[in-house]
């Protein structure tokens, strides 16, 4: 008996252009370790959806379950309304996968890499040739066709990996940390290409631990930590709700934190977080914190707008540096 899951039943009632990935109570365990602990989310068609979290949060595990390369322990996961447990080939045919580690084929040239990859999707030769040229042109790699992979820089490899992910004209492009390890120029070029793809209507799911990347690219964001969802929303919403509008950074340096802390405790409307030797004082526009009273006790004080990084630091409860 093939019983329809409740999500599938729900799907029948929904307009075809809404969700493209649906996860309900998704769990992944490796022996004793629970990598993903009951998360639920939806990715809508045409949007860029960001999965954020510190290393080890469960981002890559989630992505691997969506890509059908890692079996789901429990819960439901539908990609284009197909369950990942039973429709693996069909799902994989509709996804464009850009993994975290460039697993380009070092034994083959740039062109041969794409040729071999297109074959895995049973793309006919003439169509493949067309798409290869198109993808190489888009990513400005056409003059590198005959190069070996190890002749390419990190940025070029990344562009080629994304180009490879587009060969099957995917409904969803799944990118796992697309710019990790790239220099700023290379990152911006990748971002530009991804924004272009989004403008062309390509649905994107990406993981990152760069907050500026998420702010640049994502329409909606899910922040996960230790396998659980800790916040969800648009980047603006998240910043407004979690961090307010303004931040005062109090750099303590070698000075004694006690006087500063005493002063801050007088303002119980303030939200203060401490990472290493920096205090972050979050506030909202109208009752902004005036740090003049503690100026003498701190090494340096910085006033700035709240951003996604503040949200991240606040929610994950530890500095990004702590995960290194």
């Amino acid at each position, binding site marked *: 008996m093939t019983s329809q899951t409740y999500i599938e039943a729900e799907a029948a009632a929904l307009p075809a252009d809404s969700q493209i990935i649906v996860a309900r109570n998704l769990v992944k365990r490796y022996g004793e370790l629970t990598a993903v602990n009951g998360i639920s989310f939806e990715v809508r068609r045409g949007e860029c959806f960001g999965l954020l979290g510190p290393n080890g949060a469960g981002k890559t595990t989630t992505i691997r379950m969506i890509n059908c390369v*890692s079996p789901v322990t429990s819960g439901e996961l539908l990609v284009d309304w197909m369950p990942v447990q039973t429709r693996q*080939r069909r799902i994989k045919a509709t996804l464009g*996968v850009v*993994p975290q580690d460039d697993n380009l084929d070092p034994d*083959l040239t740039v062109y041969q890499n794409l040729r*071999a990859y297109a074959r895995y*999707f049973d793309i006919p030769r003439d169509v493949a040739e067309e798409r290869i040229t198109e993808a190489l042109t888009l990513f400005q790699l056409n003059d590198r066709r005959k190069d070996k992979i190890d002749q390419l820089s990190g940025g070029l490899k990344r562009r080629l990996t994304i180009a490879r992910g587009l060969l*099957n004209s995917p409904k969803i492009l799944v990118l796992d940390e697309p710019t990790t390890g790239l220099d700023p120029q290379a990152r911006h070029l990748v971002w530009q290409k991804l924004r272009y793809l989004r403008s062309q209507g390509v649905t994107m799911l990406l993981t990152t631990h760069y907050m500026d990347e998420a702010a640049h690219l994502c329409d909606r964001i899910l922040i996960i930590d230790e396998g659980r969802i800790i916040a969800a929303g648009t980047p603006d919403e998240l910043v407004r709700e979690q961090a307010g509008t303004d931040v005062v950074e109090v750099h303590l340096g070698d000075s004694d934190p006690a006087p500063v802390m005493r002063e801050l405790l007088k303002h119980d409307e303030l939200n203060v977080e401490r990472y290493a030797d920096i205090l972050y004082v979050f506030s909202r526009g109208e009752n902004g914190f005036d740090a003049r009273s503690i100026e003498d006790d701190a090494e340096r004080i910085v006033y700035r707008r709240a951003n996604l990084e503040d949200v991240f630091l606040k929610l994950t409860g530890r500095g990004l540096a702590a995960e290194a």
Partner: protein
Amino acid sequence: MTAATLPRPRSFGFKWPDVTLRALHVWRRNRDVYMNVWLSEAIWPFVEPFMTLLALGVGLGNFIEFEQDIDYVAFIGPALIAVYPMWSATAECAWGSFFRMDQQGTFDAVIATPVSVDEVSTGEILWGGTRGVMSVFYVGLMVLAFGGIESPLAILIIPLSLLANPMFAAISLCYTATSKTISSLNYFFATYITPQFWLSGAFFPLDEMPGWVEVIAWFTPAYHVVRPYRALSSGEVDSTVAIDIAWMLVVGIAAYLAALHLMRRRLIK
């Protein structure tokens, strides 16, 4: 916490191979790589058997006399068509496959496409088998040139090699799938392939040895490849050929299914 109480889905039972013609895409990928570097890849499987035929067959063979007046080149010739391709097929599915799997992440890239893990394993075994069969042709032509083939029945070595070499490749891939590091493949060659190369009856008749040697040899694949090749090459075919073919079929299929299982365990996490 309903999730924590759910039984973990796990199947210990037999899983039917999930294999379609897409396995050939994996084979084609390996062929493309080979075509990029074929000259350097081809020299070793060519020079080594040539030297063996010259040094052992002709050189040492001058000093060897069999009771039944057999030429030593004709004795080792067909056996070399068995054991050198064994090296090619097993090396491809050991060093080659391990490198692609572990070092290069090639298999991870492939299984993210509609190609299944079973098709990756099948494609690798087919490619390992292909390397073995290519070597059958080199070595076979060489043996022919040295006058080591006495019967036209030897042409039947070709279809038999289509069974023998994928069998060697499948056995090798089983070991590769369970290897933690590339250097642990050394054990496989030092304790399994090299002894088979020298002791499976390729270079001297085993019936002159203590009985237990032949008993052990009976359980090794190379023995069941050397024996029918030699029978076909000399034209003295008897019922043991059928036994050897059956042996290769049973072991080949078992090794193939084991390789699929072990590769699934290795690649699906």
